[in-house]
């Protein structure tokens, strides 16, 4: 026997961080929800740019995914890995660099996203230098993980650890490939990819962030914590092996189901659909394996609050992974896409699967780390019921809202015109559901606060067992294969080989989809009339990105009758070839803007941005007053043009020299048009003292002009000359 010490302090640190960021991330989500439910209140009293919906929606998603769930993953892995390998973490230093580095990244996210410093790519909004920090911290985590595996005191790698390895390698691949971007300055970069290619890489990443950040690490934790809590082995170890390989193989292909009916090549969409449907098998295999582990122990579920959380978590996982393939069917996706149905779906997964699992795990861990009993089981039970009710109150209204709105968009009168031609009509009907959803989310947070209180009381009553000394069997030299072992034991006994096989398995799907889209020109037919943005439009586009307009407005008209009747000609792949990054969006809280150019006059946009309600009654859009107040910063315009040329946008050589002149000329024309229209509506008494030239001079410097230039450009390229070749 050998005496070793497990590092519990690192587990405690991550657990506390999980709870802290969990509350923060959920509160930000609640604010975002309230902004949609009570837009007047926010516009009139809390219309701060730093908390406008477009800026805090990414803050919410990043905080709950990477801060709450991320820290939760580290909590569980750092605890279970040491025990499954009978080895302390290889390096305490790396553990603590991992911990503080991760918290620093979260802090950077919180200090950039509300200020509009964003790349706009969903769940990858953080700017280039934070991306580098994430990559470094992830490598630190992986290094510590592998080094610990290599010096382990057991022969076999338990199934949980395979999931941890797959998580590490795949997240690394996804993050690095999706984050290829060219920095323009410290706070600004452009995605290396454009249009369709950017969309495919983004959703290959986005979908697999769900797969390999929100799913595989939790399945690994499930395979450890559920048997541990139920005190019986996993239902079927055989199933867990099939579950593992099938899941990681299939998941990676399914990304394109986020881009159904878009201008992504059809073959890629079809592959995405087929693999999404197949995904139900390993997902349910895993869920059933978890639930059936409790066979014969269901009586314990009644008394053990941790198991209660786990059972609801697994049930939610089952529901979300049944619904996922369903949403990947083109006929269902036609209704659900761009609506709140997606929001309901992700919250069943996020609140139910990740949230409930994390709560259960921490309720189980903290008393163990502090060598005491949980302060109040009753309170934990109440938390369980409040959280469950919160999930229902969140998801059900969002399902109804999504289904309703999706169908309303499709409705035609007998004479063949849209019933709800005015998009806003379908938005105003969402309000009761937005209010109910806020109540559901509020309950969930209230439950989490009860938990924080319960944990604080527990921690105060106990004392931390920072280094847990245990006797374990002495280090055996059994890692080497004896040659006659079973094939899977040969791979699992060799973690490096195991990692390589995992990389190959996940790489097949990614490569098979991405390489052809990148390499084959015929997949993205070019359109000769599509030209790069003018410098002013480019600056306007960056304002659109800064404010996160893409969080509520899509730029992708699907080739469906009800879409083209509402918005105009469907979006072609060739139209977005200069879009670094692509801005297709994934949700329509407001209408699609792909053909916005030329639909309304400049003055409409000018007034609409300042006070949306003034021109569209009942609008729930935030008022962007600062566009009229702030001068456009053109310090980086030249660099932006150079950067765009480097990544393939055909600006003429030396265009930088005249870019600013062009920018000012275009700004002057727009400003003049706005002022002239403004004057035509003025009463004579005001008009006689009005200084037209001074007003134009003032206005042409403002941000609003750049934004209008961009909006007026949208979709106009092929309106002018529809000469596709």
């Amino acid at each position, binding site marked *: 026997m050998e005496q070793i010490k497990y590092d519990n302090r690192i587990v405690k640190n991550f657990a506390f961080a999980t709870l802290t960021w969990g509350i923060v991330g959920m509160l930000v989500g609640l604010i975002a929800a309230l902004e949609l439910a009570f837009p007047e209140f926010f516009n009139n009293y809390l219309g701060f740019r730093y908390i406008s919906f477009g800026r805090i929606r990414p803050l919410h998603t990043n905080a709950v995914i990477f801060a709450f769930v991320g820290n939760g993953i580290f909590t569980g892995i750092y605890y279970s890995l040491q025990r499954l390998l009978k080895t302390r973490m290889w390096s305490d230093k790396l553990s603590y660099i991992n911990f503080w580095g991760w918290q620093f990244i979260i802090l950077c996210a919180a200090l950039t996203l509300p200020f509009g410093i964003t790349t706009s790519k969903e769940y990858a909004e953080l700017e280039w230098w934070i991306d580098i920090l994430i990559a470094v911290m992830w490598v630190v985590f992986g290094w510590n993980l592998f080094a610990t595996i290599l010096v382990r005191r057991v022969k*076999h790698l*338990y199934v949980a650890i395979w999931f941890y390895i797959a998580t590490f390698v795949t997240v690394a691949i996804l993050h690095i490939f999706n984050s290829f971007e060219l920095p323009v300055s410290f706070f600004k970069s452009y995605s290396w990819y454009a249009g369709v290619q950017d969309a495919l890489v983004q959703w290959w990443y986005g979908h697999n962030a769900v797969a390999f950040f929100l799913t595989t690490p939790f399945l690994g934790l499930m395979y450890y914590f559920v*048997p541990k809590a139920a005190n019986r*082995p996993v239902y079927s170890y055989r199933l867990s092996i099939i579950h593992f390989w099938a899941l990681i*193989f*299939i998941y990676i292909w399914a990304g394109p189901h986020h881009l159904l009916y878009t201008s992504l090549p059809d073959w890629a969409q079809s592959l995405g659909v087929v693999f999404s449907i197949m995904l139900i098998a390993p997902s349910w295999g895993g869920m059933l394996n978890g639930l059936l582990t409790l066979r014969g122990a269901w009586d314990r579920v009644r008394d053990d609050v941790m198991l209660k959380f786990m059972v609801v978590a697994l049930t939610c996982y089952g529901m979300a992974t049944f619904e996922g393939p369903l949403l990947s069917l083109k006929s269902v996706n036609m209704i659900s896409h761009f609506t709140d149905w997606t929001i309901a779906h992700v919250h069943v997964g996020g609140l139910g699967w990740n949230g409930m699992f994390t709560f259960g795990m921490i309720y189980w861990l903290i008393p163990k780390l502090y060598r005491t009993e949980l302060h109040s089981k009753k309170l934990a039970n109440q938390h369980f019921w409040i959280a469950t009710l919160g999930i229902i109150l969140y998801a059900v209204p969002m399902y109804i809202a999504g289904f309703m709105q999706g169908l309303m968009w499709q409705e035609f009168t007998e004479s063949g015109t849209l019933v709800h031609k005015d998009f806003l009509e379908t938005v105003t009907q969402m309000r009761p559901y937005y209010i109910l959803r806020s109540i559901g989310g509020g309950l969930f947070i209230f439950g989490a606060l009860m938990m924080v209180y319960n944990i604080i009381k527990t921690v105060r009553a106990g004392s931390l*067992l920072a280094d847990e000394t245990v006797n*374990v069997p002495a280090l055996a030299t059994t890692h080497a294969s004896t040659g006659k072992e079973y094939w899977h034991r040969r791979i699992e006994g060799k973690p490096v080989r195991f990692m390589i096989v995992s990389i190959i398995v996940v790489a097949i799907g990614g490569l098979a989809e991405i*390489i052809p889209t990148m390499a084959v020109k015929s997949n993205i037919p070019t359109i000769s009339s599509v030209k790069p943005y003018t410098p002013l439009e480019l600056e306007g586009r960056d304002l659109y990105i800064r404010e996160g307009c893409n969080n509520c407005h899509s730029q992708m008209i699907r080739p469906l009758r009800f879409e083209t009747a509402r918005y105009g000609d469907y979006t072609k792949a060739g139209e977005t070839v200069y879009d670094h990054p692509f801005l297709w969006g994934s949700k329509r809280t407001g209408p699609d803007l792909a053909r916005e150019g030329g639909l309304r006059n400049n003055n409409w946009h000018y007034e609409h941005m300042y006070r949306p309600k003034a021109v569209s009654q009942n609008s729930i859009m935030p008022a962007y007053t600062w566009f009229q107040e702030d001068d456009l910063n053109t310090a980086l315009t030249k660099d932006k043009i150079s950067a765009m040329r480097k990544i393939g946008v055909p600006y003429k050589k030396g265009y930088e020299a005249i870019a600013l002149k062009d920018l000012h000329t275009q700004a002057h024309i727009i400003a003049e048009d706005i002022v002239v229209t403004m004057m035509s509506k003025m009463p004579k008494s005001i008009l006689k003292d009005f200084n037209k030239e001074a007003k134009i001079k003032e206005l042409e410097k403002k941000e609003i002009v750049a934004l209008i230039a961009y909006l007026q450009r949208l979709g106009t390229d092929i309106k002018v000359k529809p000469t596709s070749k």
Partner: protein
Amino acid sequence: MLRFIKSHLATEDGVEFYGMFSLMVFVLFFAIVLIRMVRMRKATIEELSAIPLSEDEPVNNMKEHENN
């Protein structure tokens, strides 16, 4: 390798082949995993699935307590 992919993507039949190829790779891979799993020894399975349940023998942990 890219030339190989390109030539197949040039026609509709080529694209169809591509999808079929992807599915076949998966089916083959899945079949191998499945067959191998079925043939695994029961003793091995039991040994592996018991890993998380093994409890470590605690040593004088009361001394290691620390106020927090």
